[in-house]
């Protein structure tokens, strides 16, 4: 057993850390207030091949591994969770399923520009009446000649208003339940496809979270991803990978908040001594540190398993459950350590706390992760 990162992984961490400090952190507070999507950051990420880390070079990627990708999301999220999730949704939820299930033609047409960062990706599964129960898909896809005709809508889609390429689930045969769900690759300019409502959110406010609307949207049948009726499995497998990204995002938020807290404790003085001299607070950050380290081990193990062809569904669920709850706990206590200042926008801590909450909800709530874990325990 070896807990050392490879030289490549260390370099990725160094590179993304420098990038996050110079390019991401300076925008974080502002885009949280204005909800402006940081397009310039995405362009810079593309230039450095950050948008295709675990994708093979023959498909335009960096030829790296999933652990390096997780480290990239982690480092970005230390400074700005919005930027972290832009990368995560793009890589895990759009490039990921095309890489895993796409035909050679689909990979050349869609994966290459995604991995190069020329196009941004998103994924549409959730609907108003199909949240945790994703099998209740209402969006339909009817084959007519050479095209599927899609009708319905998706909600809460990360990168929704900014993406070029979407992987979307729809019912091709309602009578078959989950076996009637199929996945499609949609281009933003397809006729009958439009972006609906933009959500006004508690956190990750600059990430574009929107509704996707399909009104007799014509999708060429060669854009069916995987086989017809296999879409539910594709979506679940996609989310297994996505959870590693979100767990890494949560880990990054927790680490970022803990770093800010210990720095503040050394600077801030009360009763004539720095906060770091008070044992009550020392114990608080010590406990948080242990949880952050546990979260890190779980996240890295899930990514390691994925890289090594081992099962990672339960590992990803454990990682996401623990890392997201750790992010919530660390950020909440960090606000406490900062006191009144932590509650204001003068410091990044209140933003981190708002950003942390979503990691317990999207790509499967904490309760869904427990379902996955329990189902494995009790099978």
């Amino acid at each position, binding site marked *: 057993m070896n807990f050392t990162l490879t030289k*490549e992984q260390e370099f990725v961490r160094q*590179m993304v850390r420098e990038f996050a400090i110079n390019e991401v952190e300076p925008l974080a507070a502002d885009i949280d207030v204005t909800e402006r999507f940081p397009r310039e950051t995405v362009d810079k990420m593309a230039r450095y091949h950050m948008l295709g880390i675990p994708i093979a070079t023959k498909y335009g990627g960096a*030829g790296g591994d999933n652990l390096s990708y997780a480290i990239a999301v982690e480092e970005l999220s230390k400074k700005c969770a919005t930027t972290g999730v832009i990368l995560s949704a793009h890589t895990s939820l759009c490039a990921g399923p095309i890489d895993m299930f796409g035909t050679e033609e689909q990979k050349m047409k869609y994966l290459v520009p995604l991995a190069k960062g020329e196009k941004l990706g998103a994924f549409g599964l959730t609907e108003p009446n199909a949240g945790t129960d994703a099998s209740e898909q209402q969006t339909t896809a009817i084959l007519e000649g050479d095209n599927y005709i899609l009708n319905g809508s998706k909600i809460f889609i990360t990168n929704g208003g900014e993406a070029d390429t979407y992987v979307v689930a729809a019912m091709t045969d309602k009578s078959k339940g989950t076996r009637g769900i199929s996945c499609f690759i949609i281009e933003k300019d397809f006729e009958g496809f439009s972006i609906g409502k933009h959500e006004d959110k508690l956190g990750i406010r600059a990430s574009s979270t929107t509704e996707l609307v399909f009104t007799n949207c014509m999708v060429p049948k060669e854009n069916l991803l995987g086989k017809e009726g296999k879409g539910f499995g594709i979506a679940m497998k996609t989310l297994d990978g996505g959870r590693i990204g979100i767990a890494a995002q949560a880990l990054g938020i927790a680490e970022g908040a803990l770093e800010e807290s210990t720095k503040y404790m050394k600077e801030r003085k009360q009763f004539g001594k720095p906060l770091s001299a008070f044992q009550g607070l020392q114990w608080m950050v010590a406990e948080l540190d242990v949880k952050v380290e546990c979260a890190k081990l779980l996240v890295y193990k899930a990514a390691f398993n994925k890289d090594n062809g081992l099962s990672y569904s339960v590992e990803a669920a454990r990682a996401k459950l623990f890392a997201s709850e750790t992010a919530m706990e660390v950020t909440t206590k960090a606000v406490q350590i900062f006191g009144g200042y932590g509650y204001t926008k003068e410091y990044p801590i209140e933003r981190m706390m708002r950003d942390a909450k979503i990691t317990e909800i999207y790509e499967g709530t904490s309760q869904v992760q427990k379902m996955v874990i329990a189902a494995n325990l009790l099978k």
Partner: protein
Amino acid sequence: MNIVVCLKQVPDTNEVKIDQKTGTLIREGVPSIINPDDKNALEEALRLKDSNGAHVTIVSMGPPQAQIALREALAMGADEAILVSDRAFAGSDTLATSNTLAATIRQLDYDVIFAGRQAIDGDTAQVGPEIAELLGLPQITYVEKVEVINSGLKVRKAWEDGYEDIEVKTPVLLTAIKELNEPRYMNIKNIFGMYQEKEIKTWNADDIEADKTVLGLNGSPTKVKKSMTKEPKGQGELIQLPPKEAAQFVISKLKENHFI
């Protein structure tokens, strides 16, 4: 165009602490980085490569662990890296270092040699100019702009209160300052590709065919006699007065201490 970039791995002096007893740097646990001015030198070489096409070779003298700095340079986009490493180089001052690097560069094809203005751990700014002298090349130091023109390069040299535009024929040696450019990050694709595609060449004293008497401690006419830290300034005095009275107060203090 063949470009050679001289690069040094240095301790990150932002992180360095001084041993109060001995007055020397505590290097343990201090991260090593590419010397900042050298990174500007490398960036300019890479920009010339991007715009005009060039082969960029990194040359560094240092211990084996300096490989990591060369790897970073490769990940930024350099084509080739040579680490010149030998116990014979230990104790080199700037002249011995320049002799080593000049001998190394003699083995290579070059049109332009870039070096950083100075290293943050020594601050001498001598190695670049000395290499140019040893190789018999023109040199322009404190470079803040480089343009390729028909006859060679047009280079802007910074002065404290202005600048000078100089046209120069290649081969030439230039030393970079931070105003020259904003260095790029490592490219993630290069990070993964370089370990498969690129090796760092390690050359020793024999490989560079240098006169051994001009290398290392023996080839170093200067020796460090003593290092010390500056006496810390005492606690300042904070005054809170309206501007006019504050100015009068400062003047009275300056007079009291016979500064004016």
